């Protein structure tokens, strides 16, 4: 019996010491610690596999994905009392590229503390989209890569979300392939108002694990980005009807499905 009690005590002490260790420190905006937000791309219940993965949407169309890239920017974390910490903007632009495994992490530094909510922008805000070119470095460099990157030269602005692939249901395109191409952008216009496909996504972390950010830890908010929701969202998107969606009014319909793609799976602290 005494043995049992001592075991119990030991467990209680261990638990309480654990709790003490991860108790939230006082908020100090200069006391920064690492936090990553992981964008884990999936399709329905499956892991997304470029090129070889074959998927089916709610319209009954089968498709694969050869390119998937999107901008995540302007990360804000919130404490349980609602107090926000805005990641400095110069350090808050990320290009999630399915073809580069490490790019799935948006790595930022935030003050030590416990965070129960996070917001981010899918896309690039209008302010940065119109800034001097010297302020557009790294993933924002309009020079792009060999594949033309994530920037529209002819109508100055970033492509927020780029997904390409093939589907037998897509009509034959001028290259002779059954391809679909979704290039979604539009920050609202500089000289005249036009498409605004910037979407701010909010993730409540309370149910599946708050982020406990400490200097000696590597908190990781693990999100799923379910690409099937792009097709099977508030508006069902058909590849056969809309094989190419770029700078057009319909892009807004596609972009309106963005928010539902994101779910919080868990947090590693």
């Amino acid at each position, binding site marked *: 019996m005494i043995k049992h009690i001592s075991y119990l005590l030991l467990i209680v002490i261990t638990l309480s010491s654990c709790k003490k260790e991860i108790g939230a420190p006082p908020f100090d905006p200069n006391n920064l610690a690492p936090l990553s937000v992981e964008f884990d791309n999936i399709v329905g219940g499956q892991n997304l596999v470029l090129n070889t993965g074959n998927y089916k949407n709610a319209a009954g169309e089968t498709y694969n994905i050869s390119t998937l890239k999107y901008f995540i920017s302007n990360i804000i974390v919130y404490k349980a009392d609602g107090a926000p910490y805005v990641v400095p903007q110069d350090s808050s632009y990320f290009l999630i590229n399915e073809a580069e495994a490490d790019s799935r992490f948006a790595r930022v530094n935030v003050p030590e503390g416990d965070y129960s909510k996070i917001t981010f922008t899918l896309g690039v805000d209008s302010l940065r989209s*119109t800034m*001097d*070119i*010297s302020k*557009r*470095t790294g993933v924002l*460099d*309009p*020079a*792009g*890569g*060999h594949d*033309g*990157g994530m*920037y529209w*030269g*002819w*109508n*100055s602005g970033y492509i927020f979300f780029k997904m390409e692939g093939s589907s037998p249901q897509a009509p034959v395109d001028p290259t002779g392939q059954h391809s679909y191409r979704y290039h979604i952008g539009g920050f609202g*216009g*500089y*000289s*005249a*108002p*036009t*498409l605004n496909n910037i979407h701010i996504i909010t993730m409540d972390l309370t149910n599946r694990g708050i982020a406990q950010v400490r200097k000696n830890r590597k908190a990781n908010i693990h999100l799923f980005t379910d690409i099937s929701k792009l097709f099977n969202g508030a508006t069902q998107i058909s590849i056969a009807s809309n094989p190419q969606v770029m*700078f*057009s*009014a319909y892009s807004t319909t596609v972009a309106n499905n963005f928010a539902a793609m994101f779910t919080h799976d868990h947090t590693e602290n």
Partner: protein
Amino acid sequence: MRKKQVAIILILAAAVAACSRDDFAIDVPFLGFTKPAHFPDPVYKIANNEVTKDGFELGRKLFYEPRLSRNNTISCGSCHIQSAAFTQHGHDVSHGIDDRLGRRNSPPIMNLAWTPLYMWDGGVFDLDLQPIVPITAHEEMDESVSNVIAKLQNHSAYPALFKKAFGSDQITTANFTKALSQFMIMCISAETKYDSVVQHLGNAAFTAQEEAGYRLVQQHCGGCHKEPLFTDNSFRDNGIGAGANNDQGRYEVTLNESDKYKFKVPSLRNLAYSAPYMHDGRFIRLDAVIDHYSEIKGSVDSDPLLRNGLSLNAAEKEKILAFLNTLNDQNFVNNPALAEQ
């Protein structure tokens, strides 16, 4: 006798040296960007890109650099030829890499510091972002900017030229396009007969015919072609009707129904050098342009200022043409500082 000969030789040598290019260059200091007195303030943010001699000269070298294209054959200067007021004279639409044709007429590189929006449809809002378009366009240079920068970085001369101009031999997208901007905003056309007359320079004066044409242009054309740049930089449907390729102009950028078939109002400067005219180069002669505006029975979609046509008689058309001739800037098309070196 001998001393005299030596002295003469010395004087001659000094005279020759004084005439040499280098000494001449010292006598003409680089002035940077100077606003013509009668022009408004520029819209280009010069504070973010002060024009320096090194930056300007680098920009000029880049402007005439065929490495900007995929197969190193096409430079900016290929479709923007100085003698044609930096347009592609004689081409209705631009003629790019592999003999591919664009869909619009090559616009002049002229007074761009006063141009708020670039391209016929205004899709580019910053001159520093503009070069990306022709470099990446399939029918123009068909190259990626990142590859252009890699080519320049591996070139024997460019890294040192970038270091001189921007303090670093690491070539960036920003320094690359800002060098081009420095050259392009220096392509200023402000020394026409018109400019001399309105600034009361010397004894400059219009002939009676030109003066009458000036009044007619002010009356009939000034609503869009505003002095002294002879454009208000707006986008309008001038009633020429959709072309065979149904280019919808400004609409493609704004997706606003009311912008369909609107194109940027071009300047009236240097028309003698820059034929053909209109966004698709459909008018090869200036009198055809004037006839169009005179006779237009504007559709309801065309600009309200044009709906009734200008109803000009033959004498008035001659006067307008006489005035337009005073807007041709020989110094601009012949300025050696803007030419390929």
